[in-house]
């Protein structure tokens, strides 16, 4: 027993020494878009890690040991919030033994707090599917939200890492300037999309629709979080005969079968959108995420979607 303790203490000391040698600010992002945003603002001063990839459903993530290890070493946890990560983030936080990143501390950043959320349910009942009391959490599909979150994140990074405050502010300012210019460009490009009816797999595109003026006419999931059922898809085929949509939108982590089935039956093109950074090959950063999203929507609207 005594020997084990000595070995443990020795390992502990060695590991602590190793940890203190690393200087960069460790940012644990729950989703790839926040890792990308933190990198835009922080540059080399930070070390951003994304807990999930674009191919994973952020609602359903296991509280894996590797994630606990990352949270344990994080100086800042950046997540969407609005109960998106409720099934796994609280466990990571309590298991991490890291006081800095617990809720309410400066090291805990919830992006959804800084934007005005849509679809806040007036009635909470789980019979209505996987609904979020705090509103729809998929805020990153509107670039104007990213700008709002960026402003808050600049301030937060400056608070956590005071010596780098100037760097975060100047990098952040430069990013926001480029971002606002990009938004203006995207809005101009997206003008032909205004008012187009769209069917979505999951209610993941509410903010994109609000931004571009797309009209959501149906969802492939019968209720949020409930996988598409054959009977629901049959209803959609019927419904789209009466009210045709311009395209069927799904994201990289959705099973493409449902969208493909509906597309085949109705002739309405199914469009894969990146949803977040890494969702498609072209969506490598935040800018190319929206470049790719728009180019996919526009080509669908002009091409096969014109019939």
């Amino acid at each position, binding site marked *: 027993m005594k020997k084990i303790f000595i070995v443990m203490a020795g390992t502990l000391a060695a590991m602590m020494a190793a940890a203190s040698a690393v200087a960069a600010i460790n940012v644990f992002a729950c989703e790839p878009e926040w890792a990308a945003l933190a990198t835009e603002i922080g540059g080399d001063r930070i070390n951003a890690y994304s807990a999930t990839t674009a191919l994973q459903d952020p609602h359903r993530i296991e509280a894996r040991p590797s994630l606990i290890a990352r949270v344990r070493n994080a100086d800042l946890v950046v997540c969407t919030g609005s109960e998106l990560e409720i099934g796994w983030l609280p466990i990571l936080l*309590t298991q991490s033994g890291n006081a800095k990143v617990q809720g309410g501390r400066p090291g805990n950043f919830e992006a959804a707090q800084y934007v*005005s959320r849509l679809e806040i349910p007036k009635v909470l009942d789980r019979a209505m599917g996987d609904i979020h009391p705090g509103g729809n959490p998929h805020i990153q599909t509107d670039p104007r939200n990213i700008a709002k979150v960026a402003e808050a994140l600049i301030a937060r990074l400056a608070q956590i890492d005071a010596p780098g405050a100037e760097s975060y502010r100047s990098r952040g300012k430069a990013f926001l300037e480029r971002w606002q210019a990009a938004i203006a460009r995207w809005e101009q490009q997206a003008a032909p999309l205004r008012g187009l009816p769209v069917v979505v797999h999951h209610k993941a595109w509410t903010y994109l629709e609000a931004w571009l003026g797309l009209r959501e006419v149906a969802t492939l999931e019968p209720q949020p979080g409930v996988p598409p059922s054959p009977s629901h898809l049959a209803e959609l085929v019927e419904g789209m005969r009466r009210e045709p949509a311009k395209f069927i939108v799904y994201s990289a982590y959705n099973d493409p079968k449902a969208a493909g089935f509906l597309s085949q039956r109705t002739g309405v093109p199914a469009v894969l959108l990146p949803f977040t950074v890494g969702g498609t090959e072209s969506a490598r950063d935040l800018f190319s995420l929206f470049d790719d999203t728009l180019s996919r929507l526009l080509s669908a609207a002009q091409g096969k979607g014109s019939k």
Partner: protein
Amino acid sequence: MFRSSNRAPAIAALTASLFFSTAHDAHAASDDDLKELREQVRQLKDLYEKKINELEARLKQAEQTAGQAKSSATAAQATAEQVAVQASSRTAGEGAFNPGISAILNGVYGNLSQNPTNYRINGFVPTMGEVAPPNRGLSLGESEIAFSANIDRHFRGTLVAALAPEDSVSVEEAHIQTLGLSNGFMLKAGRFFSSVGYQNEIHAHAWDFTDMPLANKVFLGNQLAEDGFQIKWVAPTDLYADVGLEFGRGRKFPGGPDGGRMKNGFGSTNLFAHLGGDWGTGAAWRVGLSHLRTRVHDRAFNDVDSTGTGVTNSIGAASRLWVIDGVLKWAPNGNASNTSFKLQGEYFRRTEDGQLTYDTAAASLGTQSGSYLSKQSGWYLQGVYQFQPEWRLGYRYDRLDSGTTGLGLVVGGALTAADFPIFASYRPTRNTLMLDWSAGEFSRVRLQFARDRARAGIADNQLFLQYIISMGAHGGHKF
């Protein structure tokens, strides 16, 4: 409608007046006059048309402005509503700080070829605890009520009360844990599921099968919850590594007697360590090693000796249990929405060394004491495959080895092995197959079939149909 109905009478009036005036003048006027008149009429007509067009344009503009005003008013109203909802989504008043509350309900239908009331795991007695399978027929399972919340910036509290179908309430877990310690340290105090092996820490509603592995039944009395405290440290490495130490009262099997001794200090210690990480983006793993040491006092159990008399025997010993556990979870790209696979296994090895007292009540051949030494082991391996959304199929294999128990009373010739039929060497096995359906994270219906050879020479075919639901706060599940 509005536009055309206004315009029609105007044009009609104009045409009518033109008609009458031209008709009247035609008789007297010359060709020149007529020409002039026509010109005047044309000018008049042009003038009216221009005026009408102007009016129409103004009307259109006015309508547009009104429409815009209306839509911006609607938008403003929508925003106001959203703001109101956003504000109201935080409850105010005393209730605002209520803890997260959840309730678990479950019910089972059991169809067993052997009567569960005489369930035993031969070679591994006494196991104590709730090791028997569910009842025959319809029965309510254990219901749970759980409260948890952050207490302040330092602590988090959890209370889980179990309501047994026999109308008794027990405290399953009641502990506080620190939030405020740093450098990877965590402290937990109260009653909690001991971190020995993998399955022991998992709440019943999150089990992948209706019942516990045989090894957990015989070595941990189904599920070990200690009163005590646990200190754990997570290493600052990207590879997950933790070590921890628990000090407990020894209130339950394998400690004992039930409730623990009235003694200062502690009755059990558990030292554990885990390593964990990812393989690519699809797989995550964790392996663990734990060592539980308990001091057994007066572990009493019943047996039937060679004279056919029911006797009560008792063990006092040092119990040392080693557990190696491993779990691997896989999903394509780490996305478990459609398909996923979970592989889990544990190996247990226990040594007990001490004294056995035969016939403590002197009901048969008289009270006698001798040495007691047992080396026992067991393991299980289970796989659960989610083959499509909401549906999972699982298989589990259990195997135990009772080894040979060394009894001083038998070796010395005072008594014979026939006086301790319970210690006859045996290797219980069990095969279990299950299929479950979960409509979301809060409900599950499971069908399970097992062939249980825990009783020497008898196969028990067990069929269970079970529902498990959870209401209220969305508790997350550990890996």
